[in-house]
């Protein structure tokens, strides 16, 4: 399975890079690719690979070096890469240019930064792109297996509503994706059937939709609403797709909270994620605090990086205020 990541990068990411950059990256060995999470192209600055807790600047022969000798990304590299990403038509991605990223086949995301053009005080479009960040999508099947038993209890027909929290890059999205797949496909060996899952993927991160079709395996009973605002999207799916479970990423705004309340009132299980390192941090966020006070979430899953990204740190029942899982060694 690890080789498949290298294979995916080769097949899906390399064709999108300018030939100059591509030939450098082709020199990188397989072991490095295993851990690489980001490829960063900044105009006039070193070509850099990033992973959690490390980075490497590359020379024009693909060797790791200091900033001094590193290959500096040329403006032509950037513009050609942009053309290759956008099928020679950046103008067809105005919505993406406004949001600052686009999703490419394979579900990888390319973040963009440049000059923002404003209209009525908000960003209308990005021009003169000077930084690109390829975030390589991880698809780790089976990562949800450890969590599933806490979400489903034999006394109840449905999984509990769950909030997954973690600091950035600790595997929230990866876990959420695998949860969606498991809940949607069902797991006969754990004796539960598949559920109808509605996935509101505002930032195309979970399903990695490219032109509307999911690039990641999100299960057989999943309906993906790609690019819709979470609040509105949840309501739409509730009306149109009769989901049993609604899944969404990174909640926090007022309208997200009120939509989630609607879901719970309609008897739909909600599985969501939020940025936070510890459960305590959440209580400073009024919207999420309100959801807890209303006993919306019966399970809280905390991820961390203490033993690599995606380490399960804690599973809690916030309603009964009980810890269901806590590593014996004490994660941190």
């Amino acid at each position, binding site marked *: 399975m690890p080789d498949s990541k290298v294979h995916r990068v080769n097949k899906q990411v390399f064709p999108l890079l300018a030939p100059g950059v591509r030939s450098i990256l082709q020199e990188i060995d397989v072991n490095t690719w295993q851990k690489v999470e980001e490829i960063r192209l900044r105009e006039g600055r070193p070509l850099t690979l990033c992973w959690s807790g490390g980075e490497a600047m590359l020379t024009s022969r693909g060797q790791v070096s200091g900033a001094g000798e590193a290959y500096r990304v040329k403006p032509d590299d950037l513009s050609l890469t942009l*053309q*290759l990403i956008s099928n*020679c*038509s950046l*103008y067809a991605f*105005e919505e993406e240019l406004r949001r600052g990223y686009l999703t490419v086949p394979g579900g990888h995301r390319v973040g963009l930064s440049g000059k923002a053009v404003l209209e009525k005080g908000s960003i209308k479009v990005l*021009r003169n792109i000077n930084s690109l960040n390829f975030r390589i999508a991880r698809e780790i099947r089976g990562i949800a297996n450890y969590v599933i038993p806490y979400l489903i209890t034999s006394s109840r027909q449905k999984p509990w509503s769950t909030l997954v929290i973690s600091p950035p890059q600790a595997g929230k999205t990866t876990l959420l994706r695998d949860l969606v797949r498991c809940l949607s496909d069902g797991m006969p060996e754990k004796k539960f059937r598949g559920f109808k899952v509605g996935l509101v993927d505002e930032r195309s991160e979970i399903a990695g939709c490219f032109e509307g079709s999911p690039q990641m395996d999100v299960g057989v009973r999943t309906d993906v609403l790609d690019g819709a605002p979470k609040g509105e999207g949840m309501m739409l799916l509730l009306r149109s797709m009769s989901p049993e479970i609604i899944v969404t990423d990174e909640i926090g705004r007022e309208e997200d909270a009120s939509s989630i309340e609607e879901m719970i009132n309609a008897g739909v299980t909600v599985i969501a994620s939020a940025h936070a390192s510890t459960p305590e941090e959440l209580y400073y966020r009024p919207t999420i605090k309100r959801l807890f006070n209303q006993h919306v979430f019966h399970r809280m899953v905390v991820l961390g990086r203490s033993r690599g990204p995606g380490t399960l740190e804690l599973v809690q029942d916030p309603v009964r205020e009980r810890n269901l899982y806590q590593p014996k060694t004490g994660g941190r």
Partner: protein
Amino acid sequence: MDETFVRLTGAICILVSAALWGEMKARSLGLRLAHLQHFQQALRLLSTEISYTATPLPRAFEVIGRRINGPVGEIFSRASRVMRDSNEMGAGEAWRQSLKQGTGETYFNQEDLKIAEQLGISLGLSDREGQIKQIQLVSRQMEYALEEARQAKNKNERMWRYLGVLGGLALIIFFCKREGIPWKALT
């Protein structure tokens, strides 16, 4: 009798080829005008494709290639194929390459080609507004070239035809004089 026949044939050959040369010259003026008009039409189509449906360039160029006949359409079709097949080239480069390959087929002069080449600048590299502006810029310059071509056609088309025939006649007379043939001997 035999000699007269050879001379007569020679004279007719000269006359016909000179007239054809003149005709060709005259026609190239008309063809340049037609190709420039095709190009303008293509720009209008491209504008529409970009501003209303944000069609990606490879597809938009393909549509244009199908709608516009002749070598101008072919330039767009070829650029579309280049963009689809290559993963080393942006739209601008694909356009320039295709234009270069099509130079022999169109009747564009150097100036026209320079204008057409400008379409490649920032092609596919800016938002809709930027693209439309660039297309308009090229289109406006094309309009001047078109006006010039129109005038050249009106002014010179007939001239080339006459020049062909008259030049042919002049050549015949010149040869007759040089050979010392009284040129009435031809008739």
